[in-house]
C-alpha cells in the first residue's frame, strides 16, 4: 500500500490570534446530540479553523482526516479512516487494519462492519468524553460514488457512541434529507458561519489591535459580508498601515473582487523574495522549508549582494505563519504547511500572469524532490502536472505492483489515464497494468482480448504477463483446462520480480484446478485452498471456497456435511451484529437446495429468496441457482405458475448478462426439464435440437465421452446432464433400451468421479428402464443400490420427484430389509401409509435447519430468564439494537414468533 501521509491525519491546532466563536462552538457541542454534524459553506468561511477551536476547547481527541482528491480511491479512503480511528483508540481496530493489509482487498462493507463492531466493543480509557468523533475535512473533494456509498453505509450503521462530522464546501451526496427528517443531523451553513458584527469587532479591534471607529467597522463588515477569509485579509492589510481611514474608504468604496484587491495589497507590501516565494510555491499541495528551497534554487545567485538578505524557505514559512498569511500548519513541528486553497488559486493565477510557463518547470523540480525523498505519490502527481510524461511513467511502473496488490486500482487507473495513450502503449508494463485495471472494472472480455493481442504484437517479450491476464479472463469464462494450460506456461516464464502477476497466478491456479471432473480431487483441492485463503486473510475468498466445497460435498452425496459447510460459510460471512454480507447469499442458495432435497419446501423457498436478494449485491448471476431452486420447489408444491415465473426470471437475468453463453444454456436446459415434467414431452428433444447438442446413441458415445478435446467445452460439461434428461424422455416414450444405452455409459464414470448425487439419479432411472424391459430383479437390485447411496445424505425429492412408481420399489426394499427406516421415511413423505402396521413410522429429522451461533445461544439462554432486553444487552455488554437483531434471527431459525415460543422450542430441542 502506498504509505499514508501522516499530515492528513494531523489535527489542526487552533491559533490564539483568531476570533473565538463561542456561539458556533456551542452549536457544535449541542450537535453532539445528533449522530451527524454537517458544516457546509464555501471556501474561506473558517470551517477548519472553527473545528480546530472546538477541538481545543473540548478536551477530547477526534479522529481527523484532511481529505484530498486521492481519497477517491476507496482503499486509500478506508485506510486513512481506520488509521485515524486507530490513532485515537490504539489497538482497537486490529481486525480492520489486517483486512486492509491483506493481499485481496475486502469489500468496503466488510471493513466498515469490522470498524463498527470494534467501536461498539471498545471502552475508552483515558478521555472524559464518551463519544468517538470522526471528522472528515474537505469532503467536497470526494467525487467517487463508491466512497459515497461506503460513507452512507457507515452513516446507516453508526454505532451509538460514534459521531460523524463532515466539513465540506458543498452539501455531500449522502442521505441528508433522511437524517434531517429524523432530526439526526446538525447543520452549520454559510449564514451561521458568517462573522457577526460582534465577532467582526472583536476580531479587528481586539485581536488585530486596530481600533477602528464603529462606522469604519460597519463598512468593513458590509464589504466583506462576514466572510472570514476576506476579513482576515482586510485585517492583515490594515495592520501597520499609517493611513487607515483612506485605505478603508478606498477599499469599501471599490467593487473589485475582494480577495483580488486585498491579496494584491498584502502581496505588494511583502519583500520581493517573499512575493516570489509565495507565487512559486503556491502550486504545491503541501510544503516544507527544504522543498521550497529546492524549488527556488535557481533563484539563488551567490554573487548577488542582497543574497544575504534573502531568507531560507523555513524562515519564510515561519514568518508567514506568524503573520497569519496564507498558509496553514500541518503538524506541530513547524515542518509541513499548506496554502489555504483560496490563496493558492490566487497566487497560482499571479504566477501564470507574471511568469508564464514557469509552473511546468516548478512542478518538475517538485517532482524530483518528492522522488528523492521517497514520496512517490506526490512525485507522480507533480510529474503529471509538469507533463513530464516519461518520468511519471517510470515512477508509476515502479509502484504499480504495490498498488495493484492492495487493490488501489483507482489511483493507478487515474494516473494511467492522464498519460498520453501513445506513451502507455510503448511501455509494455504500463499497457498491461492499464488492461488489468480494465479487467477489474468489468470491461467485456472481447475488448480485453483485443488489447492483449495488440500488446502481444508490440511487446512479445511480455508474453508471460499477457498469459496471466489471459488465464484470468479464461477463468471467468470457465474454460478451465485452458486456464491450467495458460497458467503453466506463464509460471515457467514469469520473472520473480513481478509480485502482482505472481500472486494473481497463484490465485488463478487455485481456482482453475477446481473444475477437475473428479469430485474427490476437487474436494481435496478446495480444502487446501480454504486453509490457504485463511492465511491470506481474505474473507470473501474463504466464504467462496467453503461454498464451493459444500457444493462438491453435495455432489458426493454428503448432504449433511454440505449443510454444515454452508452453515460455516454463513457464520464466516456474518459480523457479530449478524448482518449478512452479500457473498453469503451463495450459502443461502446452497442451503435452499439441500432443504429442497430434504423436502422442507417452505424453508427451501425462503432460503432461496433470501439468497437471491443477497447475491444481487455481490454477483447477480449467482442468483440463477436460486431461481432454479425456486422453480423446482414450486413444482414440487404443485404451483406450476410460480415455477414458471421463477424460470422466466432466470431467463431474463441470463439474457441481460452478455458476457458468456453458459448461463443462457443452463437456463434453457432447466426450462426444458421443467416443461417436460409438466407434460411437454418433446421439450428435451427440442432443447437438444436448438443447442445442436446432438447426443449420438450407441457406440459413438463411449469415444466421445473420453475425448480430451471436449474436456472443457460447455458441451462436455452439460453432456452428462443432458444425457440423463434425454434418457428420462426416452423412458417416457417407452424406449427403455435406448435409455439404458445412454445411462450405462455414465455409471462407471460417475462412480469413478465420486459423483454420487448423479449416480443416485441414474440408478433410479435405470431401475425404471429395467423394469419396463421386464428385468424386474435387476431393476430392484439397481433401485436398492440407489437407496444405499442416498441413505447417508437423506435424499428425499430425488426419489419423490420420479413419481408414484417408486413406491412399489420402496415397499419391496422394506420387505427385503434394505434401508428400511430410510425407505419408510420416503414413503411417509409421499403420503403413503404402509400396509404392515409392524413397521415404525419414523418422523422426519427434527431439529434446526440452521444452527444457532454462539452469540445467539448466549442470547437464547438469557431469553430463558426474566431479564428484559435492555438488561440482556447490559449482561452481554452490547447495544440494545444488537440484541434485538439476534432475537430476530433466533426467532427465524427456531421458526417461532414470540419469546415464550422461543423458550419453549429451545427447551424442546434441549438447547437450554
Amino acid at each position, binding site marked *: 500500500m502506498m504509505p499514508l501521509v501522516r499530515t492528513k491525519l494531523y489535527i489542526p491546532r487552533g491559533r490564539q490570534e483568531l476570533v473565538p466563536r463561542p456561539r458556533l462552538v456551542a452549536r457544535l457541542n449541542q450537535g453532539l446530540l445528533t449522530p451527524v454534524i454537517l458544516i457546509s459553506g464555501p*471556501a474561506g*468561511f473558517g470551517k477548519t479553523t472553527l473545528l480546530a477551536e472546538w477541538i481545543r476547547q473540548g478536551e477530547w481527541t477526534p479522529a481527523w482526516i484532511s481529505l484530498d482528491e486521492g481519497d477517491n480511491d476507496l482503499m486509500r479512503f478506508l485506510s486513512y479512516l481506520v488509521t485515524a480511528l486507530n490513532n485515537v483508540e490504539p489497538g482497537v481496530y486490529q481486525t480492520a487494519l489486517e483486512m486492509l493489509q491483506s493481499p485481496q482487498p475486502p469489500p468496503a462493507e466488510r471493513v466498515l462492519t469490522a470498524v463498527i463492531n470494534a467501536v461498539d466493543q471498545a471502552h475508552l480509557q483515558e478521555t472524559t468524553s464518551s463519544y468517538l468523533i470522526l471528522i472528515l475535512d474537505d469532503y467536497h473533494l470526494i467525487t467517487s460514488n463508491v466512497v459515497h456509498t461506503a460513507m452512507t453505509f457507515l452513516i446507516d450503521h453508526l454505532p451509538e457512541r460514534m459521531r460523524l462530522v463532515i466539513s465540506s464546501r458543498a452539501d455531500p451526496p449522502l442521505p441528508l434529507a433522511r437524517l434531517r427528517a429524523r432530526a439526526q443531523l446538525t447543520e452549520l451553513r454559510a449564514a451561521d458561519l458568517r462573522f457577526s458584527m460582534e465577532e467582526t469587532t472583536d476580531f479587528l479591534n481586539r485581536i488585530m489591535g486596530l481600533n477602528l471607529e464603529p462606522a469604519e467597522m460597519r463598512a468593513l463588515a458590509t464589504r466583506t459580508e462576514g466572510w472570514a477569509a476576506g476579513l482576515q485579509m482586510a485585517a492583515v492589510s490594515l495592520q501597520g498601515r499609517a493611513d487607515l481611514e483612506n485605505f478603508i474608504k478606498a477599499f469599501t468604496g471599490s*467593487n*473589485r473582487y475582494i480577495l*483580488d484587491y486585498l491579496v494584491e495589497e498584502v502581496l505588494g507590501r511583502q519583500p520581493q523574495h517573499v512575493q516570489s516565494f509565495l507565487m512559486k510555491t503556491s502550486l504545491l499541495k503541501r510544503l516544507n522549508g527544504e522543498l521550497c528551497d529546492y524549488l527556488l534554487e535557481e533563484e539563488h545567485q551567490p554573487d548577488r549582494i542582497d543574497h544575504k538578505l534573502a531568507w531560507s524557505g523555513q524562515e519564510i514559512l515561519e514568518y508567514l505563519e506568524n503573520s497569519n498569511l496564507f498558509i496553514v500548519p500541518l503538524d506541530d513541528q513547524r515542518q509541513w504547511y499548506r496554502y489555504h*486553497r483560496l490563496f493558492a*488559486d490566487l497566487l497560482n493565477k499571479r504566477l501564470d*500572469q507574471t511568469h508564464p510557463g514557469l509552473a511546468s518547470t516548478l512542478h518538475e523540480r517538485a517532482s524530483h524532490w518528492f522522488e528523492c525523498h521517497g514520496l512517490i505519490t506526490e512525485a507522480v502527481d507533480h510529474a503529471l502536472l509538469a507533463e513530464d510524461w516519461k518520468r511519471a511513467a517510470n515512477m508509476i511502473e515502479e509502484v504499480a505492483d504495490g498498488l495493484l496488490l492492495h487493490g488501489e486500482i483507482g489511483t493507478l487507473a487515474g494516473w494511467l489515464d492522464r498519460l498520453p495513450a501513445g506513451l502507455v502503449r510503448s511501455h509494455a508494463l504500463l499497457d498491461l497494468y492499464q488492461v488489468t485495471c480494465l479487467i477489474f472494472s468489468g470491461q467485456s472480455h472481447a475488448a480485453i482480448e483485443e488489447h492483449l493481442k495488440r500488446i502481444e504484437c508490440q511487446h512479445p517479450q511480455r508474453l508471460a504477463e499477457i498469459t496471466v491476464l489471459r488465464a484470468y479472463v479464461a477463468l471467468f469464462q470457465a474454460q478451465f483446462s485452458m486456464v491450467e494450460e495458460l497458467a503453466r506456461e506463464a509460471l515457467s516464464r514469469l520473472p520473480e520480480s513481478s509480485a502482482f502477476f505472481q500472486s494473481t497466478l497463484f490465485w488463478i491456479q487455485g481456482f482453475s484446478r477446481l473444475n477437475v471432473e473428479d469430485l474427490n480431487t476437487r474436494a481435496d483441492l478446495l480444502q487446501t485452498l480454504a486453509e490457504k485463503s485463511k492465511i491470506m486473510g481474505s474473507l470473501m475468498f474463504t466464504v467462496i471456497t467453503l461454498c464451493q466445497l459444500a457444493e462438491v460435498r453435495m455432489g458426493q452425496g454428503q448432504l449433511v456435511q454440505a449443510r454444515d459447510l454452508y452453515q460455516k460459510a454463513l457464520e464466516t460471512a456474518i459480523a457479530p451484529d449478524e448482518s449478512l454480507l452479500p457473498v453469503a447469499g451463495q450459502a443461502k442458495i446452497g442451503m435452499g437446495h439441500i432443504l429442497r432435497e430434504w423436502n422442507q419446501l417452505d424453508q427451501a423457498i425462503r432460503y432461496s429468496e433470501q439468497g437471491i436478494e443477497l447475491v444481487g449485491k455481490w454477483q447477480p448471476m449467482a442468483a440463477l441457482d436460486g431461481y432454479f431452486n425456486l422453480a423446482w420447489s414450486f413444482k414440487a408444491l404443485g404451483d406450476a405458475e410460480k415455477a414458471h415465473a421463477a424460470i422466466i426470471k432466470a431467463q431474463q437475468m441470463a439474457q441481460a448478462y452478455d458476457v458468456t453463453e453458459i448461463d443462457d444454456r443452463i437456463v434453457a436446459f432447466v426450462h426444458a426439464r421443467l416443461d417436460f415434467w409438466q407434460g411437454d414431452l418433446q421439450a428435451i428433444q427440442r432443447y437438444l435440437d436448438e443447442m445442436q447438442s446432438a447426443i449420438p446413441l450407441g457406440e459413438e458415445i463411449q469415444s466421445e465421452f473420453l475425448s480430451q478435446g471436449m474436456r472443457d467445452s460447455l458441451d462436455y460439461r452439460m453432456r452428462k446432464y443432458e444425457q440423463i434428461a434425454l434418457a428420462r424422455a426416452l423412458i417416457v416414450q417407452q424406449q427403455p433400451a435406448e435409455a439404458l444405452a445412454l445411462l450405462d455409459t455414465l455409471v462407471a464414470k460417475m462412480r469413478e468421479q465420486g459423483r454420487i448425487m448423479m449416480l443416485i439419479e441414474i440408478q433410479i432411472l435405470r431401475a425404471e428402464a429395467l423394469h419396463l424391459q421386464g428385468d424386474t430383479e435387476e431393476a430392484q437390485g439397481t433401485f436398492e443400490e440407489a437407496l444405499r447411496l442416498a441413505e447417508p445424505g437423506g435424499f428425499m425429492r430425488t426419489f419423490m420427484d420420479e413419481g408414484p412408481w417408486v413406491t412399489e420399489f420402496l415397499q419391496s426394499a422394506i420387505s427385503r430389509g434394505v434401508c428400511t427406516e430410510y425407505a419408510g421415511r420416503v414413503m411417509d413423505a409421499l403420503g403413503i401409509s404402509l400396509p404392515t402396521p409392524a413397521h415404525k413410522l419414523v418422523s422426519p429429522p427434527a431439529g434446526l435447519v440452521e444452527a444457532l451461533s454462539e452469540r445467539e445461544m448466549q442470547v437464547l439462554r438469557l431469553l430463558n430468564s426474566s431479564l428484559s432486553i435492555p438488561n440482556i444487552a447490559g449482561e452481554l455488554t452490547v447495544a440494545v439494537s444488537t440484541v434485538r437483531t439476534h432475537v430476530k434471527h433466533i426467532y427465524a431459525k427456531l421458526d417461532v414468533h414470540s419469546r415464550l415460543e422461543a423458550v419453549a422450542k429451545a427447551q424442546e430441542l434441549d438447547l437450554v
Partner: protein
Amino acid sequence: MAPHPATVYQIVVKGELDPSWSDWLDGFEIARGVTPRGACTTLLAGTISDQSSLRGILNRLWDLNLEILAVNQVCEE
C-alpha cells in the same frame, strides 16, 4: 447523437472581477455589468467544448467564493 459545435455560455457573478482573470477562466471574456438594482456584476462570456469544462469554470468561480447570479447558454444564429 451528432456532436454539436462549441457552445457559448454567459455567466454573471456578483462583484467586479479583473480582466486579468480571463486566462484562469479558460479565456472567457470579462466585462462589467450592473443589476437592475445597481449592484456591480461581472459578465463572463466564452465558448465551452462540453458540460465538463463548464463545470470546471463554475468550480473555479465557486472556489473563490464568488456568488453566481446567472448561467445562460447563448444560441448563435
